[in-house]
C-alpha cells in the first residue's frame, strides 16, 4: 500500500494566484490611479491647495462658497444640465432609430455598423472637436450649404452665444454609435415568435413597436440612459477645444468640468476645484439614484 505523502493540495490562494497576477494591473490602476487620487482630492477639497505650496485646512469654506457665493457654479451647472437634458434623449432616440433600421437584416450590416460606430470611437478626440469648429465656423460647410441651398447668410454658429451650445449638442447626437450597438444587441434578444404572433393577429407596425419592441427594450434603454447621462455630465473635450478652454463666448459653453479645470489649472485653486469635483460626484449620484428609483415604474424585465 502506497501513501501519497509528497503531494499536498495547493491552498486556495496558490490555486488562484495566476488569476490574481493577471488582475494585478487592474488593482494597480484602480488603487493607484482611481481610488488613491479620489481620496486625495476629497482631502484637498477641505484645503486651499494651490499646487505650489503645502495645503492648509480651511474646513468647509470651499463648499460654503459653492453653495452661497459662486455665480459661475450656477451658470456652468445650467449649461451642463441643458446639455444633458437636450443631448441624452435625442442621442438615444437617434441611436434607437438607426438600430431599428440596421436590424432589418440588410446586406453588409457589419459595414454599416462600423461606419455608424466610427464617430463614437473618435468621440472625445480633439480632432473631431477641431473638425466641428470648422464645420460651424462663419465660413464653414454649414453656412456654405445654407448660402447655396437657401440663400441664407448664416451666423458664425460656434462663436455666437445664442447657438454655440446647440452645436455641441449636435456633436453629441452625432456620436450615437455606442448606444446604437447596445440597442442592436437588445433588439436581437427579443424573441421572434412574439413578432410572428403579432403579425398573425394583424397588428400594425406602430402597434408592434409600442407594444412589443419598446417594452422589451426598456432594460437596454435604461442602461443606455444611465451611462449616457453620466457621460454627458462629464463632457469636457468638445467644449474645451471649441472655445480653446475659455467656455466662451460669454460662458455659453462653460461646462461644469471646464469650469473645474479653469479653477484648478488656470487659477491655481486646486482645493476649490477638488470641492467642485466632489459636488459633481454627488449630483451624478443623485441623478443615478433617481433613475434607479424611477426604473421600477417603466423598466420591464422578463417575467
Amino acid at each position: 500500500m502506497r501513501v501519497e505523502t509528497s503531494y499536498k493540495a495547493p491552498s486556495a490562494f496558490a490555486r488562484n494566484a495566476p488569476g490574481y497576477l493577471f488582475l494585478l494591473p487592474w488593482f494597480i490602476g484602480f488603487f493607484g490611479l482611481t481610488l488613491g487620487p479620489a481620496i486625495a482630492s476629497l482631502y484637498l477639497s477641505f484645503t486651499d491647495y494651490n499646487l505650489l505650496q503645502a495645503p492648509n485646512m480651511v474646513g468647509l469654506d470651499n463648499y460654503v462658497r459653492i453653495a452661497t457665493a459662486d455665480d459661475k457654479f450656477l451658470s456652468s451647472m445650467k449649461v451642463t444640465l441643458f446639455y444633458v437634458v437636450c443631448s441624452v434623449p435625442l442621442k438615444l432616440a437617434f441611436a434607437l432609430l438607426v438600430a431599428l433600421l440596421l436590424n432589418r437584416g440588410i446586406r453588409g450590416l457589419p459595414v454599416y455598423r462600423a461606419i455608424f460606430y466610427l464617430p463614437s470611437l473618435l468621440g472625445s478626440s480633439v480632432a473631431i472637436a477641431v473638425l466641428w469648429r470648422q464645420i460651424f465656423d462663419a465660413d464653414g460647410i454649414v453656412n456654405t450649404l445654407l448660402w447655396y441651398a437657401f440663400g441664407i447668410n448664416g451666423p458664425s454658429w460656434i462663436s455666437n452665444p445664442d447657438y454655440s451650445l446647440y452645436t455641441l449638442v449636435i456633436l453629441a447626437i452625432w456620436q450615437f454609435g455606442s448606444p446604437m450597438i447596445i440597442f442592436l444587441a437588445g433588439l436581437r434578444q427579443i424573441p421572434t415568435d412574439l413578432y410572428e404572433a403579432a403579425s398573425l393577429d394583424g397588428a400594425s407596425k406602430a402597434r408592434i413597436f409600442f407594444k412589443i419592441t419598446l417594452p422589451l427594450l426598456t432594460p437596454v434603454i435604461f442602461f443606455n440612459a444611465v451611462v449616457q447621462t453620466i457621460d454627458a455630465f462629464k463632457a469636457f473635450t468638445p467644449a474645451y477645444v471649441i472655445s480653446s478652454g475659455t467656455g466662451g463666448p460669454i460662458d455659453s459653453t462653460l461646462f461644469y468640468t471646464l469650469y473645474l479645470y479653469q479653477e484648478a489649472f488656470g487659477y491655481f485653486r486646486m482645493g476649490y476645484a477638488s470641492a467642485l469635483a466632489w459636488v459633481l460626484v454627488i449630483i451624478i449620484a443623485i441623478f443615478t439614484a433617481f433613475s434607479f428609483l424611477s426604473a421600477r415604474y417603466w423598466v420591464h424585465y422578463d417575467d
Partner: protein
Amino acid sequence: MTLTIDRRQLLAGMAATLAFSGIGLSRANAATAMRLLWWGSKERSDRTFAAVKAYQAKNPDVSIAGESFGWDSYWTRLATQTGGGNAPDLIQMDYRYIFEYARRGALLDMTPYLGKSLAIEDFGPANIDSGKVDNKIYGVSLGVNSSMVVVNTSAWVEAGVEPPHDGMTWEQLGDACAKVTAAKKRRGFYGTADASGGEPAFECWLRQRGKALYTADGKLAFEAKDATEWFDLWAHMRKIGACTPADVQALDQQTLETDMLVTKKAAVSYAHSNQFVAIQGLVKEKIDLVSYPMDAGSKPGQYLKPSMLMSVSATSPNKDAAVAFVNYLVEDPEGAKTLGVERGVPASPKIRDLLTPDLDATSKQVVDYIGRLTPHVGPLPPSPPNGAGENAFLLKKIAEEAAFGKTSTKDAGAKFTEQAAANITRG
C-alpha cells in the same frame, strides 16, 4: 510546482527590470541632462531647438530636452510638474507669473551667479530689475517687448486709405478703419479687430488717462466709469462699422492663429511686438507695426517689459549648468543670434548691435519699432496681484456681453470692476 517556477521567473524579471532601470539612471547622471519648457509658436520652437543643438555641440556632456506648448496648456503643464516635484530645470517665465512662482519658492535665486556665470550686467538696471522679485533675480529677460498695433499694409493700400501711423488719435484710427470696412474690397473684412476684450489694449488706454490696471499694493487702479467709457469707445467703433462684429470677434481665442488679422477678417489687430515675426510668418501679405493711438495731451500708455524671462527651477539638480545655458541664450553671440528677436529685442546692447546688421527685414521692423517707441513709454507697471490672470478672461467675457448687446456698456463697466475686484481679493 509550476507556480514556483513562475514566481522565480517573475522575480528574475523584476530584478532584470531594476537592473536595467539602474543602468538608465546612471547613464542619465553621467551627462548633465536637463529639461527646458517653453510656450509659443512653431517659429519659436524651431529657433529654440536650434539654439539647444548649437549649445550641445559645444558642450557634449550636456543634454537638453525641450518641450513646447501653447500658452494655455503651458501653465497647466508647468503647475502640475512643479506641484508634483518634477519641475523642468529651465523654465520660460512670464512677468505675469514670476511673482507667483518665485514667492512660492519654485524658482532659483540667481543673484549669486550675477557677474560670474551670469554676465548680464550690460542689460542695465531696468532690464535686470524686470526679472527681480523682492530684490532677488529669479528671471533673465529674453527680450524687450511692448504692445503694438499690427497693420496689414496691403489691405490698406487696396482699400485706398492711408495706413495707420504712430501718434494717431483713437478717433482718427476709428474713422480710417471705418473707411477700410466701407471700401468692401474683401468679403467679410473689417478695418480693425475689436480690442475691447483685450487686456493689453485696455491697460494702455487706462494708462493714457493716468490710471492703471492695478496699484502697487494689488488693488484695482481704475473705476467703473473708466471701464464703461472703454466699452463705449468700442460700441462706437462697432456702430460706425470700424471693427469686427461680435460673432466674428468671438472667433479670436487670443492665440496668434485665431488673430483677426491672421485669419483675414481685419486690416488691423493688437498684439505684442515680439509676436510680429510670427504673425508675418502666418500671413503672406506685407504687414507693419505702429504704436497705440493716443489722444492729444494723454500720458504714455505703453511700456517696455520683458517679453518673457528664463528662470531656473529651485529644485533643479543641475543649477549651475542651467544658469550657464541661460547666459548662453542672452549673452553668447551664437545663442543670441539663433534666437534672433523672436522673443523680443535683446536687452544687452552689445548683442543688439551684433544682431542688427544680419537681421531680416521683418526683425528689423521690430527693432526699429522698439527704438521709435522707447522715448514715449511710461514706467513698468507693478506686477499684477494673484487672481489677476482670471481678470483677463473676465474682460473678454464682459466685453463680449456688451458687444452681443446682452448688457449695456454702463452695466458692463460696473460688472467688470466689481468682479475683477472680487477676483483679486480671492487671490
